[in-house]
């Protein structure tokens, strides 16, 4: 069939509502009788709750109710579940509101329900909580020291789990044989996601039907429903409808089941009126799940020829005070398994210790585990190249997994599906004129100007799957995706997808797939998502799974639709089914293209069922659950060029080139946009962002005044290109593009800055590379 839409850089169909202010985000919604919730949050990182006095708040005009954690537990509310269990893992309870102790700043101790949001906030300040303040610890390494304050009685040493992957003995042996070893200690700092739309939830309870409706900022409404209904509130699943309308960015932070949305759903029933809560930004800083937060020791063993022999990695992963929904999976199966990078490394051994601290829980943030792995691998490769006196591009090239070795089994469990790493590297080097750039760098150094060139050759694992495998690794969910395709009598099509769009443009990209497959105009296709009341089921959007898993589910349903439509068409054309060809929206008998039935005619017949094949059910709709055979493995090379001002320490990004390979691209416009945004978040981590806790585990960077996100004038224009190595195991050949930029960028930028600082003998500085840190490092280097 002629492709008309797949691969075309179409403008997005969702944009008109956003550019005219007609989007519908949760906080835009209202209901008759709506009341507002304000959370009372702990100012202490660790404290015993002695007493909570509600009286003053309850007397405040406009206040309807005040509830505490005890009220919730007494009514039968259970702990928030963790969706990934590791062997031997400690899983202390996490109630929506603290009952006996608070364990991080911002933990909820009470909720005030009032007539409007101003009153609710006023009254929240009137709730008096008596605390016995206890010592606290924020740092993952310090939490492991003997005598550190314990976060939970269940884990007196603060260890949640110890996990390892790879062959320890074989790796030790490789290090014994090594010609040279390279060691690096690094911190992958804690980040705060900061979707610009704050989280929000509005819940309604209907006593007539005993049904709840929850509107929530969610990347995966069905998962929200399952976890909240079955595990926390004890509501039968079919009595809770979860709707996630337009969502203003997620980046992981809107995957998880949070206390607030559980509280408003429960409270709506208690007060008999719909309840809404919208996070203030300061609440987002202490209550949205944070990301990263690793302390790592990594080593590389290299032989005489510069071939990598082995890698050894030890990581302390700070999990925060409680286990968020997918927390244990991030520093283990999404991190340790990616440590082979793009390289043929004969043996790898990685140990991870998951640690509780008195901080906000940590979970998946854009890339989730994979940026942390890439950062370790790509920093090590750069340092190894430098210490071996090799060019960083050539050193990488020498160690790449060659294109003829796919599928490639790494020593850390994954089997990479397809790849051409040298192809992407070559293209990136060409775009940036690498050799010429290196010459310029030398010349400028002589003039006292410090240019740095940083490479990052990343690998990513998207669309984690199949369900059987993730189940065996501890996932408490299957990781397939569903799609229902409903053809209407006029031949218009509605697709109900279990994936979710919060900026990724699914309404356009998925419609492109459907219009092509059915040979119908794209205007005839509607994509519906985000409502458990209309979409059969779904796992949502995270880990760049929507195109490879969600898109593939749509294709499966379209195949079923076409099969059934062909049966109807064969009957109408009085032909044998196997002789009927479907092309450009028309069914015809092979060799007789002039005698045809259009897709629309067949659709109508499916519903009239007047002149209809015997034994075939009327109607034309199909539903599928697609369980992938494997992850997909996007890859690419990003190159960043920076100039560092040695007098101020300020880094200026001069150029940023990204060559990504995400398999076949559905819509290049959307794919490029995803890469841009991803790079911005990676640059943010490299240069600006970082959660800062003080000695008492107070979050110092708790507002946009104190936490630096990249602004327009912090970033350059990006130079984007791609190569195409199709995914061999899904019907679309797509791999996923949503996180590549973030996964690649931190290492590219840090490698560039360290390259610029090499003349000073500076080997490594931990992120964020703020002017002050760089300036101090240069000053110390000059003094030495």
């Amino acid at each position: 069939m002629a492709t008309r839409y797949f691969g075309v850089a179409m403008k997005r169909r969702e944009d008109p509502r956003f550019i005219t202010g007609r989007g519908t985000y949760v906080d835009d919604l209202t209901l008759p009788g709506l009341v507002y919730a304000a959370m009372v949050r702990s100012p202490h990182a660790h404290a015993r709750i002695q007493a909570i006095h509600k009286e003053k708040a309850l007397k405040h005009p406009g206040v309807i109710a005040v509830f505490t954690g005890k009220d919730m537990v007494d009514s039968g509310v259970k702990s928030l579940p963790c969706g990934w269990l590791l062997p031997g893992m400690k899983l202390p309870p996490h109630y929506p509101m603290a009952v006996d102790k608070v364990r991080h700043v911002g933990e909820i101790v009470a909720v005030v329900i009032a007539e409007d949001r101003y009153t609710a906030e006023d009254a929240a300040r009137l709730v008096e909580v008596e605390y016995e303040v206890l010592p606290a610890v924020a740092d993952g390494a310090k939490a492991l020291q003997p005598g550190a304050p314990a976060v939970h009685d269940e884990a007196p040493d603060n260890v949640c789990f110890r996990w390892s992957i790879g062959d320890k003995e074989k790796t030790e042996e490789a290090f014994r044989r090594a010609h040279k070893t390279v060691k690096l200690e690094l911190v992958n700092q804690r980040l705060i996601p900061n979707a610009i739309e704050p989280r929000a939830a509005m819940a309604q309870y209907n006593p007539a039907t005993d049904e709840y409706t929850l509107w929530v900022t969610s990347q995966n409404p069905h998962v929200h429903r399952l976890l909240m209904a079955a595990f926390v509130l004890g509501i039968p699943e079919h009595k809770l409808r979860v709707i996630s309308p337009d969502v203003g960015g997620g980046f992981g932070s809107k995957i998880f089941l949070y206390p607030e949305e559980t509280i408003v759903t429960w409270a709506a029933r208690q007060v008999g009126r719909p309840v809404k809560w919208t996070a203030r930004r300061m609440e987002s800083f202490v209550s949205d799940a944070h990301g990263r937060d690793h302390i790592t020791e990594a080593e590389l063993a290299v032989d005489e020829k510069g071939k990598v022999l082995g890698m050894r990695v030890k990581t302390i992963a700070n999990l925060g005070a409680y286990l968020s929904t997918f927390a244990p999976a991030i520093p283990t199966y999404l991190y340790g398994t990616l440590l082979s990078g793009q390289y043929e490394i004969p043996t790898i051994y990685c140990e991870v210790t998951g640690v509780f601290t008195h901080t906000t829980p940590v979970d998946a943030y854009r890339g989730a585990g994979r940026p942390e792995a890439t950062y370790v691998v790509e920093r090590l490769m750069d340092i190894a190249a430098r210490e071996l006196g090799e060019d960083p591009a050539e050193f990488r090239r020498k160690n790449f997994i060659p294109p003829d070795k796919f599928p490639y089994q790494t020593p850390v469990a994954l089997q990479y599906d397809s790849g051409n790493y040298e192809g992407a590297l070559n293209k990136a080097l060409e775009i940036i004129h690498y050799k010429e750039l290196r010459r310029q760098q030398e010349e400028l150094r002589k003039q006292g100007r410090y240019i740095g060139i940083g490479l990052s050759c990343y690998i990513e694992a998207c669309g984690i799957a199949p369900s059987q495998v993730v189940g065996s690794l501890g996932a408490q969910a299957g990781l397939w995706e569903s799609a229902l395709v409903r053809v209407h009598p006029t031949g218009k099509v509605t697709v109900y997808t279990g994936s979710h769009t919060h900026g990724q443009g699914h309404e356009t990209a998925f419609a492109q797939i459907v219009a092509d497959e059915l040979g119908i105009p794209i205007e005839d296709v509607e994509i519906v998502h985000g409502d458990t009341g209309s979409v059969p089921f779904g796992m949502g959007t995270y880990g760049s799974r929507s195109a490879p898993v969600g898109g593939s589910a749509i294709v499966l349903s379209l195949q079923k639709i076409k099969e059934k439509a062909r049966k109807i068409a064969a009957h109408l054309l009085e032909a044998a089914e196997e002789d009927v060809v479907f092309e450009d929206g028309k069914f015809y008998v092979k060799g007789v293209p002039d005698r045809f039935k259009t897709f629309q005619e067949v659709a109508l017949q499916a519903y009239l069922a007047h002149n209809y094949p015997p034994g075939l059910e009327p109607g034309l709709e199909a539903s599928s659950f697609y369980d992938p055979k494997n992850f997909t493995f996007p890859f690419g090379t990003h190159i960043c060029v920076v100039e560092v001002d040695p007098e101020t320490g300020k880094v200026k990004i001069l150029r940023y080139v990204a060559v990504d390979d995400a398999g076949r691209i559905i819509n290049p416009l959307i794919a490029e946009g995803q890469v841009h945004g991803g790079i911005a978040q990676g640059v943010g981590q490299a240069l600006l962002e970082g959660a800062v806790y003080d000695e008492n585990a107070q979050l110092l960077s708790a507002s946009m005044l104190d936490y630096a996100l990249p602004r327009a004038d912090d970033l350059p224009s990006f130079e984007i290109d791609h190569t195409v190595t199709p995914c061999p195991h899904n019907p679309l050949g797509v791999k996923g593009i949503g996180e590549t930029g973030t996964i690649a960028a931190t290492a590219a930028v840090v490698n560039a800055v360290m390259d610029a600082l090499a003349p000073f003998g500076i080997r490594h500085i931990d992120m964020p590379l703020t002017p002050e840190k760089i300036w101090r490092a240069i000053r110390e280097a000059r003094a030495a």
Partner: protein
Amino acid sequence: MKVPVTVTVNGQVYQREVEPRMLLVHFLRDVLGLTGTHVGCDTSQCGACVVLMDGKAVKSCTVFAVQADGSQITTIEGLARDDQLHPLQEGFWEMHGLQCGFCTPGMILSAYDLLQRNPNPTDEEIRHALEGNYCRCTGYHNIVRAVRYAAEKLRVQA
């Protein structure tokens, strides 16, 4: 105690009684139901709530509704005229200058202010002018192109 406020928003006059401490952004969203203006932070950092007040961009989370008494406000809902998108709206659509769309109204109105002051900005000037607006999705690359597109179109029209 509530006080009377009269504001013209997108050409329509509204008279309401509000608490003196009510922020303009909440007045627009919760009282008038104009939810195109968004709240992204509490500290006037993000710019999601930018509207035009008497023709100039203001962060409506740092203005009290009572301060807007007697003024002319334009929100994103009032930017398109006679069903014709403003060149900035067109530019954001054409150049893929948005993803989740949450920061977009504020971004467009900040850019509107820039183009009034400087009809032919360089990329650097566009980036500088938008430094009071956060976008977490686009990396700004396409936002800069969107503003440039609009500047060119407005110059042709002028």
